[in-house]
């Protein structure tokens, strides 16, 4: 990843940030929420390149979201940056611990075990009546540098925060994917044993990937919690995880920006479907997924990449 592309990315995101005051508020909220999904999907891309698809990424997503809600409720933390940092730390901790177990597994077993773990968190949350059980709890309004913007100001602040997180995730994940550990993902996917013969511990690599993806999922959960102002156990349910995998398929594992565009597209398709066919929006959503898999097998990101390859003749990171 070159300095030029970082600059370009920063310029695009900065432009988006500057355009915010001239954009309808509902669209800004929608984009903010899509960015939170995009962050989780970024993490899924890291795993997917290594041939791993978790059906339980909602575990880390919900951990991040509940960390934000409870830090506010129990310890009175309101600073948005601190809340997100706490959420990431908690998600990383959880991933580090369950990673010792999960990193032993591959393929469908990895998917199933991560699903089981997230469903256990779901069960615990449903059982916690002090946390509102399935009704969940509200998230207190966050502050930014000691300021408490109200109304549209809060929406803008969250949007700019989201853009900042997207930028950080984009730079960070691109750097990781370009590193040796990141490049080994394809090798792990193709043939793990050969990688082991190179003297590299695949289990530890997978553990690392899982932890990074959990950090991103935790950040996504934190952003979602702030932007929805509410958390509930549904965030840990398997359908939430399914939604993340859905977007990953839509976006493809080819590039990081595609994760965010895919998430945005997903959110837009969903909201249009709900408006168009209130009683049958799942039908539209399912059809979009089906058509994507059948006709754009590498995801929408692959369309962008293909173009770029023909222009610059170089593979994108």
């Amino acid at each position, binding site marked *: 990843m070159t300095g030029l592309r970082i600059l370009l990315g920063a310029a695009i995101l900065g432009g988006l940030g500057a355009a915010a005051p001239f954009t309808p508020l509902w669209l800004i909220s*929608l984009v903010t929420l899509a960015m939170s999904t995009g962050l989780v999907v970024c993490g899924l891309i890291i795993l997917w390149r290594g041939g791993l698809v978790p059906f339980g990424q909602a575990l880390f997503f919900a951990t991040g979201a509940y960390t934000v809600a409870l830090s506010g409720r129990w310890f009175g933390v309101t600073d948005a940056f601190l809340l997100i940092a706490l959420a990431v730390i908690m998600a990383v901790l959880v991933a580090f611990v369950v990673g010792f177990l999960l990193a032993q597994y591959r393929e469908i077993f990895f998917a199933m075990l991560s699903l089981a773990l997230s469903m256990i968190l779901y069960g615990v949350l449903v059982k916690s009546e002090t946390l509102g059980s399935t009704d969940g709890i509200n998230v207190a309004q966050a502050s930014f540098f000691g300021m408490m913007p109200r*109304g549209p100001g809060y929406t803008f602040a969250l949007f700019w925060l989201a853009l900042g997180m997207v930028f950080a995730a984009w730079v960070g994940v691109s750097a990781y994917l370009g590193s040796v550990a990141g490049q080994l993902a394809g090798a792990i996917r193709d043939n793990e044993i050969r990688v082991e013969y190179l003297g590299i511990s695949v289990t530890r690599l997978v553990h690392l990937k899982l932890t990074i993806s959990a950090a991103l999922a935790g950040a996504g959960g934190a952003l979602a919690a702030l932007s*929805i102002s509410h958390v*509930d156990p549904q965030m840990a349910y398997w359908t939430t995880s399914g939604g993340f995998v859905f977007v990953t398929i839509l976006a493809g594992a080819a590039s990081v920006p595609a994760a965010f565009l895919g998430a945005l597209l997903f959110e837009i398709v969903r909201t249009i479907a709900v*408006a168009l066919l209130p009683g049958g929006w799942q039908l539209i959503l399912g059809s979009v997924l089906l058509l994507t898999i059948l006709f754009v097998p590498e995801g929408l990101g692959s369309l962008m990449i293909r173009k770029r390859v023909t222009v610059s003749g170089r593979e994108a990171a």
Partner: protein
Amino acid sequence: MQRTSPRACLARKVSAALLFAALPIAAVAQTAAPAAAPVNLGIVSFLTGPAAGPFGIPGRNSAEIMIEMLNAGKVPAPYATVGLAGAKITPKYVDEAGSTANQVTEFRNLVQRDGMNAIVGYISSGNCLAVAPVAEELKALTVFWDCGTPRIFEERPLKYVFRATPHATMDNVAAARYVLKKFPDLASFSGINQNYAWGQDSWRDFVAAMKALAPKATVDKELLPKLFAGEFGAEISALLTTNSKVVHSSFWNGDLESFIVQSSARGLPARSTMVYTAGETAMFRLGAKIPDGTIIGARGPHGVMAPDTPLNKWFRQVYEDRFATAPTYPAYHMAQSILGLKSAWEKAAAAKGGQQPAIDDVIKAFEGLEFEGPSARIRMAIGNGHQGIADIAYGSFRFNKAENKAEIVDIVRYPAECVNPPANMTSTAWLEAGMPGAKCN
């Protein structure tokens, strides 16, 4: 003034007479004139998923028919005026299925993108809790129509959110009172409730009310199966091994019907009387499958327990004519929420001399409002005037074989103050204190 010929004078008299006769029509026509822009009303309800059949669709249907009749000015007094203070209502229906994130997004879309003037929505308590802060942030008048959790106004005061439908504490307090009327010497009871917020809250409230009213009665079995489990064999066995005379359940929809059928097949009703706090939605569908004597609630004095007022008669009539089925309590909840909004709207309009009110005026008018629902008088008495209370009724099920009709007999009506906490107490605190200040006569 011009001088006029006698003929012209006659013509003017005739036309004046005609005009006079047409005045009521003209008045209606005038208020419906393009001068009053239509009011955009977002209606959110489950259109898909398990809650659609028993709650979402009856609610949606009720909204459809109420809005249509209000726009035509066909609702009986005191609601005979067109729309909301003369402005016709344009509804937009949204599905409540999907995550809370989706609901919050769609709520923002309704307010900020689609320019809704007010929202009447939400069955799920989780969605109500999630939407409430957003409604405040967007300053959007929102009327929750079916969700039951008392937490909405107890956690913090809200300005833009109202709920005409009483909260769920009342259902279980009244259930306890009714049970003890039927079984004054009850030694022990059990409960089977779905393992999510609604089930847990219902059971907790019922136990607390029983503790206050009959301290000697003990809890035998406390079962909380997974929501939508469908299969209750083990739970039924567990209940069969107890000596509970009464089993409390807040089941609804599929779980309710499955449980009734499975427990009847295994003879549970012969040993214990079942109390279904939300049983009314199933009584017509199951009919004779429900054992006689089962205690049934309707989250208010709705459905067959509703009094025989002209408004109620009219409501049942139009609803049955359109949808070929009797309105169950969700239909009543929706109707009373829309009528509450209309009452507030028109009270605010009257204060402004008949002009369309601003949202802040409507809110001021809604606070502490009293109005007639199809089944009960609703008083926005608690939650700083944002939460309605009303009477509630409980009764016992009986299947009338002669007429092949499901009936409710032994109906007892409890006044609102008998089963609701006072304005200055949360429902949990009120129950724990032994329900002080309850006025039951």
